[in-house]
């Protein structure tokens, strides 16, 4: 193996990276060795903190100053691990390029996209301005941005997220580099857009012959695009295998747990026969929310005439892409946002138009789990105090009883008893989300609103939190409004599913009706766009749905 390294596009030999931090030095990448063949898509997968980004970034010299690199990184037969920043500048773009996670942040808002692509072109060629501009148009056509002659003079804010990512990719392929590092290129995008970008990357690999190092945590994306997969955990390479083999027979126990934790579309628990419909906990009737638009234009309608209901013990999954108004509905139900028209009835009481004081008794019956576990707990309070807060506010318990109740709640969400004395930043993401759940359940609510509760978590953690969620719901039988962009998660948890698009309700029905047999075009496209973590199945789905993305 070691003899043929000259033929590799990129190869890592015993790479280690350490960071100097407040808590001493931290080894982020530990003795990593793998190769990237020319023209292949190599996926580097792992959970957050596994060192996947750091090892990839070492090849392009984009590590912070606090990092110390040892080992060998060979790019086209040349060791680049010890290069200075200046030497890297000569390589970047020409031999190796990068596609970033957040396309909005990777483009300079003050320059047109054409200028930015031309800059990338002119950095390594001696084309003049006009030729560089023509090349930019050509590149935009290559990444299939519609109307490239015109769009080349657009500023980034005039493009959508998916179009911006196309521009970033155009910058990356400007000088036809041998290696493209794509760091979570679709994580910030909606599923339908993600499907288009993945299609583009596959197409580019075929046409340019560049090797793509795809860094991702999404197993569906891996199954869709990768040829070979490197699995990393805690800074070390756990397994390297071709993609079919990895999904079919994972060799390492870590890979097996990782794969089994990934939620699968179509893996939900079997439908329970609907129990009595007589007890609606939440009824949303013809809800509309408008926000003030910019001066001169009319108000922006975030939610448009949406009606839903949830019965006791039921979970309604509310899905939609970004900007579909799903979170706004959640905030209205929690009375954090006033609806423009329509009514929200919780347990028979209309909560629209109630004052904060009048809302208090309603809020006793109510829990809310937020998206980001890191920011939804007060960083200056101990976890025990955070969980006790609802009990204190409603003066339910005090003194020793309060502490006992907090211990009970922490136990119910499987947190160790000493967690009560710790601060939120001392917990992991999954533990924090458990603490959030404990707080939401403190008063034994009848209704729980969960706004993307697992989207900030790693898959294995997500799996555990979802398990806990199901278990608690069957035990406490609260109704749940589960807001998510992830169809696979909704499929696993929800009894009924509502699909939102641009503030309007597209479809609502039982899980099987909506996800297995969608009635509207949009839902069909949404379901088809979700990559399934199984290469063979994903290939079949891709062929079947090719007609939907035109």
């Amino acid at each position, binding site marked *: 193996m070691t003899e043929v390294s000259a033929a590799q596009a990129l190869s890592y030999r015993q790479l280690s990276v350490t960071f100097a931090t407040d808590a001493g030095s931290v080894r982020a990448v530990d003795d990593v060795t793998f190769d990237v063949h020319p023209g292949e898509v190599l996926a580097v997968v792992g959970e957050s903190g596994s060192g996947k980004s750091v090892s990839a970034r070492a090849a392009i010299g984009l590590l912070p100053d606090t990092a110390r690199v040892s080992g060998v990184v060979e790019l086209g037969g040349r060791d680049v691990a010890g290069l200075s920043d200046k030497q890297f500048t000569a390589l970047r773009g020409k031999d190796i390029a990068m596609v970033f996670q957040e396309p909005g942040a990777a483009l300079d808002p003050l320059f047109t996209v054409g200028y930015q692509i031309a800059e990338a072109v002119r950095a390594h060629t001696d084309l003049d301005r006009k030729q560089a501009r023509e090349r930019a148009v050509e590149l935009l056509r290559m990444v299939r941005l519609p109307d490239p002659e015109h769009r080349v003079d657009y500023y980034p804010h005039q493009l959508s997220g998916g179009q911006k990512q196309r521009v970033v990719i155009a910058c990356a392929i400007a000088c036809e580099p041998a290696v493209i590092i794509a760091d979570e290129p679709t994580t910030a995008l909606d599923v339908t857009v993600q499907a288009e970008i993945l299609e583009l990357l596959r197409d580019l690999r075929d046409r340019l012959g560049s090797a793509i190092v795809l860094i991702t945590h999404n197993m569906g994306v891996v199954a869709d695009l990768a040829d070979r997969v490197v699995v990393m955990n805690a800074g070390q390479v756990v397994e390297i295998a071709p993609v079919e083999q990895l999904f079919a027979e994972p060799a390492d126990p870590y890979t097996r747990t990782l794969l089994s934790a990934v939620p699968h579309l179509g893996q939900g628990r079997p439908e329970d026969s609907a129990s009595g419909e007589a007890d609606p906990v939440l009824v949303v009737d013809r809800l509309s929310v408008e926000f003030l638009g910019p001066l001169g234009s009319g108000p922006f309608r975030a939610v448009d005439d949406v009606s839903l209901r949830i019965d006791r013990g039921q979970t309604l999954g509310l899905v939609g892409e970004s900007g579909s108004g799903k979170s706004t509905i959640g905030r209205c139900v929690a009375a954090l946002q006033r609806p423009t028209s329509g009514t929200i009835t919780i347990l028979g009481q209309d909560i629209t138009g109630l004052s*904060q004081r009048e809302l208090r008794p309603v*809020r006793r019956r109510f829990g809310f789990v937020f998206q980001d576990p890191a920011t*939804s707990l007060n960083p200056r309070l101990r976890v025990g105090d955070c969980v006790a807060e609802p009990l204190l*506010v409603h003066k339910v318990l005090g003194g020793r009883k309060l502490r006992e109740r907090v211990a009970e709640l922490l136990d119910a969400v499987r947190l160790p008893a000493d967690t009560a004395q710790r601060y939120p930043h001392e917990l992991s993401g999954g533990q924090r989300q458990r603490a959030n759940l404990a707080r939401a359940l403190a008063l034994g609510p009848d209704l729980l609103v969960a706004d993307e509760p697992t989207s900030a978590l790693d898959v294995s953690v997500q799996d555990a939190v979802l398990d806990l969620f199901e278990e608690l719901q069957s035990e406490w039988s609260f109704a749940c409004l589960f807001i998510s962009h992830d169809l696979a998660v909704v499929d696993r948890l929800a009894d009924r599913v509502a699909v939102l698009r641009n503030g309007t309700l597209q479809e609502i029905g039982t899980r099987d009706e909506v996800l297995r047999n969608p009635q509207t075009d949009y839902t069909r496209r949404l379901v088809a766009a979700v990559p399934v973590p199984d290469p063979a199945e994903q290939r079949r789905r891709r062929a079947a749905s090719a007609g939907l993305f035109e």
Partner: protein
Amino acid sequence: MTQAAGVDNVAVGVPKRRAVPGIGLLRSTHGLQRATLVAGLVLVAGFILVAVFAPLLARYGFAQTSADGVDFVRQQEPSAQHWFGTSVRGEDVYSRVIYGARTALMVIVLSLAISLVVGVVLGLVSGYLSGWLDRVLVLVMDALYAMPSLLLAIVVSVVVSAGQSGTLGGILSAAVAIMAVFVPQYFRVVRNATVAIKAEPFVDAARVTGAGTSRILFRHILSNVTSSLPVIITLNGAEAILTLAGLGFLGFGIEPTKAAEWGYDLNKALSDVSNGIWWTAIFPGAAIVLVVLGMTLVGESINEALNPLLRTRRADA
């Protein structure tokens, strides 16, 4: 929001129940930053010690012009009898410098305490409630900002003391005058931090549980907006001394028989300087410089230590 464990340990101004304040701060700095911090802390500690133990350190009273029935020789050079010499009125300069620390400390503590409470409470309420109250308060505070600070201090001190300047009245009027200069600063910092924090999910979480406004303000928001205050407090302390000295120098300070005040002494030393009498001006002047330097050093180092972007780290291993 970067909430690394290290950052949390160094929040000195915020009462932490676990860490000894200062140790974490000291540990998080190194090299030149640590030297700066230590130098500042030594100067400030010396200042506070001198102020507290002034009666023990001073050899005479601050307004004393004679001992054992014998008047001091006026404008006498530094000697074994009078270490820093005597002033034109025959007071012992050394004793007045020592007692001056006491006046300065009282004024700083008083003015900072008042302006901290007023500025923080107004800032919290204004930032969280927003609406017309917020607009009016911001307008008033910005108007105060626009006034030259010394002029503002003079006006306020005249209004408060109404020409009287006893020990307590003098100190109080100086403190209130300085407070008027500082309240807008605390107000602005706290208000802006509150506006940012109130959009955080944990505030929404508190609202969803049904917590009242005052509970949200003082239990959830307050502890999260105070992290930048230690820096302003120490830097303002330095400015407070300068303002106090300025007031005293211009004659709006405290009567020399009621308290010793560095600015006033500097003013009285004006004519001495041209006559070659240096000791009446140098010593109070040096005291002002040292205390201001100490507080500025501490403030700047806290700022650098609290800000992970400015903090230097030891790169071992």
